[in-house]
């Protein structure tokens, strides 16, 4: 399998100080990353409950959930519609305020964060949405380059990195195309390149393959798996797609707002559950 980041090796990547250097990584405490990356979970969810509305309209969607995801691990989250998957994903991604329980992302507690602190954390997370949400006025290259303004890239590095990551998602020949000239699968791959360009240590994906054909979906699953392997980042994917389930290290099932981990569950059985 090809390496997603051809231009920068893992050592060079660490020397950039963006994510590889523990002392400079805002989400990782000093010493955690190199001395014991397994010691600090990428995500730790403890006793998380969540409600929508107030008064008579108050509706609880999450009940006392616990989940730990380690660096390098690909975890898929399945469950019926309305079971609370997306709510949990958005809580981990600091897009919602935590009401009850605690969530830490690389040791950083997300409860009670100010808006500015939440933005800082989100800059270190790669978000992949079901819809690509690319700027139709920008080319594939420019859409990915836009995300580099969030990290400390030097001008010279940016061009190579953007071209490489677009090549890695199979769009080397489509750099100068605007989203309108790309297929749905290609657009989603651009969105993934945008999510991965800053080498996030945590990737949160919501149905990333839902609108894609078999080949495009397969390629995206492969990319996410390789990202976890090569960059030791944690990946949490909300999905109903069997292709994704097959590459997962662990599958968690969420029913009626409660997680039931199924580490040893037979994938065929799971497939039946999902279907």
């Amino acid at each position, binding site marked *: 399998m090809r390496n997603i980041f051809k231009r920068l090796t893992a050592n060079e990547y660490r020397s950039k100080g963006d994510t590889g250097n523990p002392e400079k990584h805002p989400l990782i405490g000093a010493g955690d990353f190199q001395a014991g990356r397994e010691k600090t979970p990428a995500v730790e969810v403890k006793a998380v409950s969540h409600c929508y509305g107030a008064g008579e309209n108050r509706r609880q969607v999450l009940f006392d959930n616990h989940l730990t995801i380690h660096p390098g691990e690909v975890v898929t989250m399945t469950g019926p519609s309305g079971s609370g998957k997306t709510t949990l994903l958005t809580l981990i991604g600091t897009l919602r305020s935590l009401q009850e329980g605690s969530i830490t992302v690389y040791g950083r507690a997300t409860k009670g964060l100010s808006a500015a602190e939440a*933005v800082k954390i989100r800059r270190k997370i790669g*978000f992949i949405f079901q*819809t690509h949400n690319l700027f139709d006025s920008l080319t594939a290259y420019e859409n990915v380059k836009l995300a580099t303004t969030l990290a400390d890239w030097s001008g010279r590095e940016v061009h190579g990195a953007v071209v490489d990551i677009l090549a890695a998602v199979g769009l080397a020949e489509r750099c100068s195309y605007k989203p309108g000239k790309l297929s749905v699968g290609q657009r989603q791959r651009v969105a993934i390149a945008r999510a991965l360009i800053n080498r996030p240590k945590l990737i949160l994906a919501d149905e990333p393959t839902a609108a894609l054909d078999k080949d495009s979906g397969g390629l995206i699953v492969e990319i996410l798996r390789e990202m976890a392997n090569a960059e030791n980042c944690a990946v949490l994917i909300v999905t109903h797609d069997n292709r994704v389930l097959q590459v997962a290290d662990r599958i968690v099932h969420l029913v009626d707002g409660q997680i039931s981990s199924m580490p040893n569950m037979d994938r065929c059985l799971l497939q039946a559950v999902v279907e």
Partner: protein
Amino acid sequence: MRLELALKNTFANRTRTLASVCGLTFAILLMFMQLGFLEGVRKGAALLYEYLDFDLAIVSNKYQTMGDSESFDRVHLAQAMCARGVEKGMGLLLSQATWKDPDNTLLSRIIIIGLARSPDFIADPDIKRGFDTIFIPDKIMLDRFSQPVVGNIAIGRRAKINGHWIEVASHFKMGMFFAADTFAVMSRETFLHLTGQPPQDLSVGLLKLKPGADRGAVKKALEKILPDGLQVFTRDELIGKEQDFFISQKPVGFMFETGVAVAFCVGVIFLFQVLSVEISNRINEYATLKAIGFDLSFICGVGLNQAILFALMGYAPSFFIAIGLFRLIYAVSRLPVSMNIHLALLVLADVLSMCAISSVLVLQKVRRADPVELF
């Protein structure tokens, strides 16, 4: 990247952008025209005093404007001329009158100006050139930019002022159509003959000071010497008072100021709509930017840059169209309207305010864009 994104977003749909720019051009052109008219009225209002060379002016307390001035005894001009620092003086006679062209039955409103034979007080080259011609009895110098209702104004043409026959001997340029249909300059003697005013009366006493004399000190001294019914103005003060009368007290100023305000509001509303459509079409993209860690200032900066781009694209053509229209208006009406740096900057400042207001309103949408809704 903020400006680059704003540029690319702005030009992504060229047809829509062109339509938006056309609308904004029209709104900004309206602002140029209204402010240009206002500036024209301001300039035109004091044109007579711009044509005269003096340091201080004495007028009655009841003086409103050159067309509505209360006269005072010329002995007070003589009194002022004796003051320390004053070099010489000239009496200026002003009055409204009627003009009757023999070829039509219409009566025109005219302002007549009577001058003493003191060419030192004349600054305008046209009046200087024809100055001698007005000292022949019943010969006058007529405004070349008279309204058509005045009729034929050729040199040698005879018409009646206040029922007395006069003859046009020369021309000068005034064109203050909002104050009167035409202006006529004549000798003091002809003026007194046409109006029947007592010879000792004056409308304005003009004074020139000796070189090095302190204008403020002489003004203060004159205010002490002269009786209470008179007031002393410097040249700039008198011009300011004249302009203020037309801008603040006559409906013409209010009319154009209202026009500017309406044009400004039209611009704000139009720009708001253009930006609103632009932002609404990309609200998911902006929400995505928020989700992946762009702060609100970056996203609002993109919106603000787009507002400025739209406004500047509307400003540039309206600037050039306004220059053409001002020339046309001046040729037709002789209202002294023209493009100048002050007007250009004033409209630019208005346009930038327009951007700021419409951006603040429309960017509330971006502020409310919730990235959670993307999931």
